[in-house]
């Protein structure tokens, strides 16, 4: 497997607090990786570094062999690197379809066309509708996104993340706040998208059921460092991991 994203010795400080401390990580294409770890382990900061929200204080990052350490966010998205957010981040007053159209138009280089109506963007609209079918929200296309249920907003969040047709997509706690039924649906969706779209997903997740059901590979983080990484079976048996999750052992049992 070739590495889609390679992080080399990345460090990120916030004042005296070292959020990420010398992390090196390779994310090969086609392997669904889950990043786990207690709160404050640096999982979301790692996503922020990888996707360009933060620039690391030290270290480099390579996407498909090209250095991207200082590349702006939107250019990383254009290269095929996208993400969803832990806290809901959708365009609440735009319609569901428009939420998907924004990334679709941006990827087609048509986001800045000033003098014709959206209806003339037939290809983009068709593609956005296809994505809405994929995330099972086709009937909601004209509703303002902010009026959707929490679960549907999560699906939309996922839809915006996959709309740029990324090769690598980070999902920050995709199942948070979902009912068991919705959670199962999101998991199936992620699994299906990774085979159908050949998108490599990296999920940050607290729910161990989701992690062990989905992941081909698990990265355990603690205090800004990678504690251990390996296939699920190996992680499940690892003593150090259990210690980090002391009190949460039943989750791993």
């Amino acid at each position, binding site marked *: 497997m070739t590495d889609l994203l390679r992080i080399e010795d990345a460090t990120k400080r916030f004042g005296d607090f070292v959020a990420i401390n010398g992390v090196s990580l390779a994310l090969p294409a086609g392997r669904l990786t889950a990043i786990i770890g207690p709160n404050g382990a640096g999982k979301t900061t790692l996503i922020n570094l990888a996707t360009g929200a933060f620039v690391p204080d030290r270290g480099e990052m390579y996407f498909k062999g090209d250095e991207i350490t200082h590349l702006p966010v*939107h250019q990383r*998205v254009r290269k095929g690197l996208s993400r969803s*957010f832990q806290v809901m981040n959708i365009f*609440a007053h735009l319609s569901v379809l428009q939420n998907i*159209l*924004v990334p679709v138009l941006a990827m087609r280089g048509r*986001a*800045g066309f*000033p003098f014709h109506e959206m209806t003339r963007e037939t290809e983009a609209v068709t593609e956005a509708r296809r994505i809405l079918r994929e995330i099972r929200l086709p009937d909601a296309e004209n509703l303002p996104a902010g009026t959707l249920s929490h679960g549907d907003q999560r699906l939309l969040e996922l839809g915006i993340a996959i709309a740029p047709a990324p090769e690598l997509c980070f999902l920050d706690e995709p199942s948070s706040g979902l009912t068991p039924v919705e959670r199962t649906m999101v998991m199936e969706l992620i699994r299906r998208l990774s085979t159908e779209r050949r998108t490599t997903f990296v999920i940050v997740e607290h729910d161990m059921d989701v992690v062990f059901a989905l992941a081909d590979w698990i990265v355990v983080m603690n205090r800004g460092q990678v504690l251990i990484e390996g296939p699920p079976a190996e992680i499940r048996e690892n003593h150090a991991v259990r210690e980090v999750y002391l009190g949460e052992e039943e989750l791993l049992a």
Partner: protein
Amino acid sequence: MSPAPDRLSPQITTLIVLLVVALFLLPWVAGRYPVYLAMQILILAVFSLGFNLLLGYTGLLSFGQAGFFAVGAYACAKILLAVPNLILGIAGGVACAGVAALLLGILSVRHTRIYFAMLTLAFGMMIYSIAWKWRDFTGGDDGLVGIPRAPLEIPGIVSVSVAAMDRYYYVVLVLSLLAILAMYRLIRSPLGLTLQAIRESDTRAEFAGVPVRKYRLIAFTVAGLYAGLAGALLPPLENTVTPPIAHWSTSAEPVLATLLGGVHSFAGPIVGAFLFFVIKDVIVRFTEYWLIWFGIIVVALVIGFPGGVMSIFARRHRRVVQHPDDADHMHKVQ
């Protein structure tokens, strides 16, 4: 606002057609003063429409739009004083304001929220002090006087005199209508959608592949072009330009007009510009301290209709995007 566009309803279309017809007939049926007032309203409408592209659609509150209004006005005046050709004057005013907005925008759009508002206020006042201090060029506090209402001329081909107020009115009317139409198309285009996405969530837009700062700069420049057009229409009307048009209180006019009409509605700034002058015109008849009363009325209206006057129609016509703030209020009223 949906991409399968909800066409204007027949009633609204009829209303707009009647309004436009009435505007074209105005000089025949009304005296000099209503025609003059209509020009003031149209100019403020264009000015406010550009301002609301920033506030209502991109989520940026600029307090410095008078700077670009003044650049448009002074540039137009200087050109008309040198070359009496109205096309050249207005086009030059718009272009200069656009360039000024582009340059100051590069510095301003690096920031958002209150920092952006403060920066634009500072740049606006900087332009004001240039208008005030650079006597040789701007005439200082005397301003520029004797600006001709020059003919619309393409040398050697055509020359139409618009020296009469009624004729100049049609210049203002046609250019304003074109500017309104262009903005209407822009709002409904992919660019309009992208700007609204930035207003909703700039981080989300950036992670959707949108170069947010570039698009904020585009919006700022377009708003500057609109301010410049509004400004450029003024000197041929008044025959004079003075520094107060660059003052921050001029920047407040599109803010007030937009708040009056409604931030979240396309027509809001236009309706607001109309209300601005009508309210002002009525109050001025009764008191010299019109601004105080005007302020009280604006505050009352903003408290009464947080979504602007256009929000009254929100439930019946879907032209207005309902916002939670407005919706909450609507429930209370009901």
